[in-house]
């Protein structure tokens, strides 16, 4: 049981946290993504960073509705969230989901929600750069190949290509690139609310195509920075029956392992 304080707790004690951790729906409810949430929290707690979550006061940011075309549902949720965030006087937000990151950073401002929003890749990179994160347990990674899968909403959408790679470089592993990466990175297939419906008729599922590119690199680990990419790539690896050889991890999980906060079997 992790001991995590909510904004309500901080407000009751008349205190302000350094940063609000926006957990997101996947990070809250999806079993795989919950693990990532916990790894990230362990890193924050290990560094004694004063952070809060909204807990039951957090709602979906509205991203899947907005991208599906339902601006009503999006704005309803956004305006509710903004009311909560502004009510607490939030200034800085970090999130482990690129979709939450994109929408909070780009689409909330014109609705009245102005915050400094960081994706955890950038946040972790800043902690590494400032020397606060020191890796102690990188032996497990030594010489192992890791390939990073660019999330569309981090990469093309917001031009964050290097931060997640910098985080991975800390691990002493061998970073290998897929055939299409960075600006040309192939989507995992989840965005635009595709995650929540059946595929349209076609020859192949998009996550399979992307997993094939990842498998071509011979990497032991596929690193993701998005809960939806994580699900898509995990499903892809399973469909290819490679789950024994290839693992999908979030960069936060890998970094937590590098600090001895998690154990990871490679």
């Amino acid at each position, binding site marked *: 049981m992790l001991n995590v304080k909510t904004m309500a707790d901080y407000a009751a004690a008349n205190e302000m946290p350094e940063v609000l951790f926006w957990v997101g729906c996947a990070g809250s409810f999806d079993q795989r993504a919950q693990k990532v949430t916990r790894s990230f929290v362990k890193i924050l707690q290990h560094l004694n960073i004063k952070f809060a979550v909204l807990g039951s006061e957090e709602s979906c940011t509205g991203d899947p509705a907005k991208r599906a075309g339902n601006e*009503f549902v999006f704005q309803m949720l956004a305006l509710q969230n903004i009311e909560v965030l502004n009510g607490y006087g939030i200034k800085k937000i970090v999130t482990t989901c690129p979709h939450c990151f994109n929408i909070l950073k780009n689409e909330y401002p014109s609705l009245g929600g102005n915050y400094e929003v960081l994706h955890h890749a950038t946040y972790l990179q800043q902690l590494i750069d400032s020397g606060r994160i020191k890796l102690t347990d990188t032996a497990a990674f030594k010489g192992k190949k890791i390939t990073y899968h660019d999330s569309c909403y981090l990469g093309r959408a917001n031009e964050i290509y290097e931060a997640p790679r910098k985080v991975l470089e800390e691990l002493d592993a061998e970073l290998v690139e897929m055939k299409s990466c960075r600006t040309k990175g192939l*989507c995992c297939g989840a965005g635009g609310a*595709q995650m929540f419906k059946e595929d349209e008729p*076609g020859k192949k599922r998009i996550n399979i*195509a992307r997993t094939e590119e990842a498998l071509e690199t011979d990497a032991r680990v596929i690193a993701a920075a998005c809960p939806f990419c994580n699900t898509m790539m995990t499903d892809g690896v399973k469909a290819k029956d490679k789950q024994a050889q290839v693992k999908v991890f979030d960069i936060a999980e890998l970094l937590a392992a590098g600090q001895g906060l998690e154990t990871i079997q490679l």
Partner: protein
Amino acid sequence: MLTYFQIYLFIAFAAITAFYAYRGYNRIYKNIKLGKPENLTDNPSQRLRNMLLVALGQKKMFKNMTPAILHLMIYVGFVITQVELIEVFIDGFTGHHRIIYHAVENIPALRSFYVFTISFIEVISIFVFIATVAFLTRRWLLKVPRLNMPELQGFPIIDATIILASEIYLLTCIFSMNTADMAMHNGEYGFLVSGMLMPLFDGMTYTSIHYVERIGWWGHLFGVFAFLCYLPYSKHLHILLAFPNTYFARLTPKGYIANMPEITKEIKLMMNPDAAYAAPAEQPAEPVKFGAKDVFDLSWKNLMDAYSCTECGRCTAACPANQTGKLLSPRKIMMDTRDRLEEVGSKIADNKGVWNDDGKSLIENGYISVEELRACTTCNACVEECPVMISPLDIIVQLRRNLIMEESNAPAEWTGMFANMENNGAPWQFSQQDRLNWVKE
């Protein structure tokens, strides 16, 4: 006599061209103005930079070297050949022959510069020829996949071929004209490439060489005039529209999808019913329509995008949905938008400037299908790839809004997802009270 005849002929040709070209370009301008207003004039220095780098400097083309270099050859050739056209025009209006050359022939430095310029154009033209043949080969023999997709069948592939063929036609005219001119004057001009081609005319009489020169000159000019009139009906319009289109491209991050202010207003009223009682009379005269169903509902920039599309298919080649065999092709989104706009525009023109609903729209009706719209992952690969900064995604999202908010046309899973989001603040059916359950390991 003959000289005067030629001047009149030239002026007649020029006037006819001006008339048809004006009609063509004016049509495009009017059609683009059918779109909704959108203000895209902020930050002019960034806009200028985009235009110089992406349109003039071809920056985005260089993501893919082979076509970039071939395209650059034709592009540079096209621009540089216009220099020779200046003299052709003055000659045409005045009935002179190589007026600039004769003006400078006794000033050695200027004369050399003239000869250098024409020789340079000739050398560049050789490169244009090579590139044109390479492009025809890529399209027709190598069958590069993105140049042979279903949406290109019919006019688009003919259009592409017409332009490449006319490129070769123009080069043939230029070289016949220059070479014959050299042969008639015993090589006095000293042009580089036509100098080497001169022996081709060995044994021909002066009169027949003169005919060749005139045919080349008129042929070239006729080609240029025809090109000007044809351009507004062709994907090659991008040579002009690439400039405004990159200038007015959105400067926001690619992940940003604009919020709809009309909806903010409604939701604020819902969240604060007192305000609704305070201002009940403020009903808009026309019911607000959400999202886009037809070209009128899109912004003028979406419509300019449609006319700027080069049909190159870089977007479609990068599209994850298309790569995995889904029906969606972002290039087709742009082509359908343009074709529907052309249809609407010509119906308005036929009807003396008035639009009567034709019962059709951009969605379905042989244009963009619901299945295509549903397949998009909003990944921005198409936007990233486009060499002229078009956003097919922006159109897709606006059409999706119409399907969902006006037609209630959503797959069942999405309907359930919307309901969950409204009721329990998550796309899945979990209680909001359980959002902190992850703290338990």
